[in-house]
C-alpha cells in the first residue's frame, strides 16, 4: 500500500511536470503579447521593452520555464501581471467556492445519473427506459450555458425560488450545481444502465434469487455494489471534464471561483494566472484519479494495489 502510493505520487509529479511544460510552451508561442496588454495601447516601444525586461519575458523559453519551475517548487506561482497580487493568494481565495460548486455538481450528476440508470435498467426495453434514454441524450447534448440560462429563467426569474446569481447561501448553490451536473448525469445514467443490465444477467444474481431473497435486497446488496465498480474509475476522469464546465457555469451564475478567474486571465493574457489555474486543475484531476484507484480495492476485493 505504502509502496503503491509512493509510486503513484511520483507518477503524479511527472504528469504535473509534463502539463506545466506543455502549457508553458503553448503560452509562449501564443501570438498574443502579454506586455502589450499591460503597457496599454499608448505605451512607447521603450516602455514596452522595459516591462518585458522587468517580467523577464525577454529571456529564452527554457530560462523562463526554469525560473517558473524553481518558484513553483517553493510554492511561489508568481504574481498576476495586471493585478500585481500573488497568484497563489488569488487562487486560494477562490478555490473554496469552486470546490463547493464541484462537490455540488458531482453530487447532482451522481444522484440523478445513477438513479435514472438503475431505473432504466430495471425497466429495460419498456417505454420508461426509452424515455429516460432520450432524456439522457438531451442532457448530454445540451450546451451548459443554455441549460444554465434556462434554469435561471424558470426557477429564478419566473418562480423566484432561487437567487439569480452570486454566492453565499445554499440557495445560491442549487442552480449552478444542477447545471454543472446535468451533462454528467446523462453520461452516468447511460453507463449505469448498461452496467446494471450486465450485472443483472450474472450468475450470482440468479443465485441470489434462488436463495429466496427479496427483489429490494438483490438490488441493493448484490446488483448495485457490482454495477457501481466501473463507474468509480469514471468519476476520477470526470473531474477533468468538469473543469471545462466550471468556466462556463461560473460565468453564467456569477460564481466567484477559479473558472471565472481563468476566463478573465485568458482574455488579458495574464500568463501567471493561466498557469496557476492550469496547475491547480491538473492537480485536482490527478488526485481525483488517484482517489478513485485507491477507493476501488475497498469495494472490489479482487483488485489489489500494486
Amino acid at each position, binding site marked *: 500500500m505504502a*509502496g503503491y502510493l509512493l509510486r503513484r505520487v511520483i507518477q503524479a509529479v511527472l504528469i504535473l511536470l509534463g502539463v506545466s511544460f506543455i502549457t508553458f510552451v503553448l503560452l509562449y508561442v501564443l501570438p498574443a503579447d502579454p506586455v502589450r496588454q499591460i503597457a496599454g495601447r499608448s505605451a512607447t516601444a521603450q516602455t514596452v521593452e522595459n516591462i518585458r525586461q522587468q517580467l523577464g519575458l525577454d529571456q529564452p523559453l527554457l530560462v523562463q520555464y526554469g525560473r517558473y519551475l524553481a518558484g513553483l517548487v517553493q510554492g511561489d506561482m508568481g504574481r498576476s501581471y495586471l493585478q500585481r497580487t500573488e497568484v497563489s493568494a488569488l487562487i486560494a481565495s477562490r478555490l473554496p467556492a469552486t470546490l463547493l460548486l464541484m462537490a455540488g455538481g458531482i453530487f447532482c450528476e451522481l444522484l440523478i445519473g445513477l438513479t435514472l440508470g438503475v431505473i432504466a435498467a430495471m425497466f429495460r426495453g419498456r417505454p420508461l427506459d426509452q424515455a429516460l434514454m432520450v432524456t439522457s441524450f438531451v442532457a448530454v447534448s445540451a450546451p451548459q450555458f443554455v441549460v444554465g440560462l434556462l434554469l435561471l429563467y424558470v426557477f429564478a426569474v419566473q418562480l423566484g425560488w432561487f437567487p439569480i446569481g452570486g454566492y453565499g447561501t445554499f440557495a445560491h448553490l442549487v442552480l449552478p450545481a444542477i447545471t454543472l451536473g446535468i451533462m454528467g448525469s446523462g453520461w452516468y445514467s447511460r453507463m449505469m444502465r448498461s452496467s446494471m443490465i450486465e450485472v443483472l444477467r450474472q450468475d*450470482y444474481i440468479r443465485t441470489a434469487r434462488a436463495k*429466496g431473497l427479496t427483489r429490494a435486497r438483490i438490488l441493493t446488496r448484490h446488483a448495485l455494489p457490482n454495477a457501481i465498480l466501473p463507474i468509480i474509475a469514471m468519476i476520477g476522469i470526470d473531474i477533468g471534464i468538469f473543469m471545462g464546465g466550471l468556466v462556463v457555469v461560473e460565468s453564467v451564475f456569477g460564481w466567484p471561483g477559479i473558472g471565472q478567474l481563468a476566463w478573465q486571465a485568458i482574455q488579458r493574457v495574464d500568463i501567471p494566472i493561466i498557469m496557476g489555474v492550469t496547475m491547480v486543475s491538473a492537480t485536482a484531476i490527478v488526485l481525483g484519479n488517484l482517489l478513485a484507484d485507491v477507493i476501488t480495492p475497498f469495494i472490489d476485493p479482487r483488485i489489489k494495489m500494486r
Partner: protein
Amino acid sequence: MTMPDPLLSVRDLTVSVRDRGVVKPLVSDLSFDLRAGETLAIAGESGSGKSITSLALMGLLPNNVTVTSGQMVLGGTDLTQLNENQMRPLRGAQVAMIFQEPMTSLNPVQTIGTQLTEAIRAHEPLSRNQARVAAIAALRQVRLAEPERRMGQYPHELSGGMRQRVMIAMALALRPALLIADEPTTALDVTVQREVLELLRDLQQQTGAAIILITHDMGVVAETADRVVVMQAGRMVEQGRTTDVFAAPQAEYTRDLLAAVPRLGAGAARAASLPPKALVPVARLVDVKVHFDIGANFLGRPTHRVHAVEGVTFDIQPGETFGLVGESGCGKSTIAKALVGLVPHQGQINVDGKSLAGLTAQGRKDICRDVQMVFQDPMAALDPRMKVGDAVAEPLVIHGIGTASERHDRTAELFRRVGLTPDQMTRYPHEFSGGQRQRICVARALALRPRLIICDESVSALDVSVQARVLALLEELKAEFGVAYLFISHDMAVVENVVDRLAVMYLGQIVEMGTRDQIFGNPRHPYTRRLLEAVPIPDPTRTRLPYLRPAGEPPSPMRRIGEQITRLALTDLGGGHLVAPEAVS
C-alpha cells in the same frame, strides 16, 4: 407395499419461449415423480430442455419463457399457480438449487459469510450471530476445512471445488425438501467431482432431501441416480430405474447416447502400434520451464513466482498422438502456449529440429506453419464477424500461399474434408452448431498442412455424440495428413481412446509418462491412480470405494521468489514408462 406419496409430481409440463410473437416449446409434456430421499437424474445433451426444467421448478425462468401448461406439485402445492411473492419464500427454504459455474455463481464483492448468513436470514428469524453459527455449521457439514476462516473470505480466494461446496452449504443450510443440482460438477476437476458427488450423497442421507440432478454425463448418472429421465429436444424419451435403463435402454436415442460415451478400458482394444521413432521428432521439449512472477513489494518487485511448468521433458514423434493430462492449474495448457511461442519459456523447445529460442519474427511465423492449435470453445475461437470460409483461408493469406482462387479451392477442399460443404463457406459462425464450429476450427488448423496440431480440450465442450464424431475425424486426418497431435484433456476416458503415449502432469511437473497401455494398464504413480479412480463409470452396478478428503486449499505451484520447487526425478520402469517417486508433496 404401497409407495408413499411423491414429494414432487410433475405432470405434462410444457415450457415455451416467446420470440417476436412466435411461441416455441422448449419442454413438452414432461411428467415424472420424485420421492423424498430419492435422486432423479435428468440427462440429455445441449438443447434437450433439462436446464429449463430445473429453472421452471425454481420459478427462475427468463422473462420471455413461461410454463404454458401442466403442473408441478411440490408437497401439495402446485408451483405453476404461484406468483413471484408466493414463490419467493419457497426458494431456498423448500426448493434449493446449485449451479454449474461455481466461479461465477457467488457475488465477487461479498464475503462467503455474508452470502451464507443472508440466505439463512431470508427465511429464518435468526439474529446475525445465530445465523453465523448456523452458517459455520453448514460449512462444516460440506467438509470444508477451517470454516470460521472461510466466513471472512471472498469467493476469488477459494478454489472451484471449495466454491461449489459453499454453494452446496448455502443450498442445504435450510434443509430444503428438494435440491436441484444443475450440472454441479461439470466445471470441476475429476477428483473434485468425485468428492462433491460423494458429499451430495452423504448429505442426502443425513437430510433426506430429494435431489434432481441435471447432467449430460452418463457416468455421473450411473454413479448417483436412483432413477433417470432421458431427454432429447424438449421431450422425455425414456424414464426408469438407472440400473434398468443402463442394462436395457428402450429408446434408440438412449442406446446411441450410451454408445457414444467414452469409456475407460475401451482404448485397450485398439491395436497398439506405436509409430516408429523418427530421427527428428515433430516437437522436443527439454527441461522446459515457464514461470510467472506475481505480487509486488515496496519497490514494485515481484514477491512470488508461479512455477507453472517446471522442468518438463518429452518429445512427440511424427504421426503420433501424445496426450497431456492433469487437473486445472497443472500447466498443461501453458506447455501448449509455450510450444507456439505465446508465453516465454526457459529450457529448450525444438519444433521439427529447429529451436524456438532466439528466433526472429520471420522464424516464429514459419514455426506457426508447422504447429497449429484447436481450442476448447469454437465459438470464442472464431471471429463472429468473419465468414467461416475467410477464417479458414486466413492462415494461407497470412503466409502468402497461393493466389486468391487457389486459396478458395483449397478452403473448399478442407471444408469437404472435415464433413462440411463448400457452399457453407460464406456463412458466419453463429449459423453453425457447436460440433460444426469445431470442424471449422479443425479445417483452419489444417490449412497450412502443419506437422503438429495442438488440441487443447478441443472436444470438452461438445456433447458426447458430437464429441465421438469429431474424435473420429481427428483420427482419420491423422492418417491422411500425417499430422501429429498434442492432445490436452482432463477427460481420462477420452484420452485413453485417442492417444498413443501420454504424460500425467501435476503442479507443473510430469509425474508419470508412457504408452497408453503402460499408463492405463499399469498406473504406478498415486496421482495417476487417483485420477483414474475418480473417472465416473457409466455402469450403475459398479461399486466403488469411498474417497474421503477434507477440502482445504489445494496445493499450489506458487513459491516465494528464490525458493526452489522440489524437482521430480523420473525413473524408467522399462519400455519408456517413466514414474516420479511417490513421495510428492
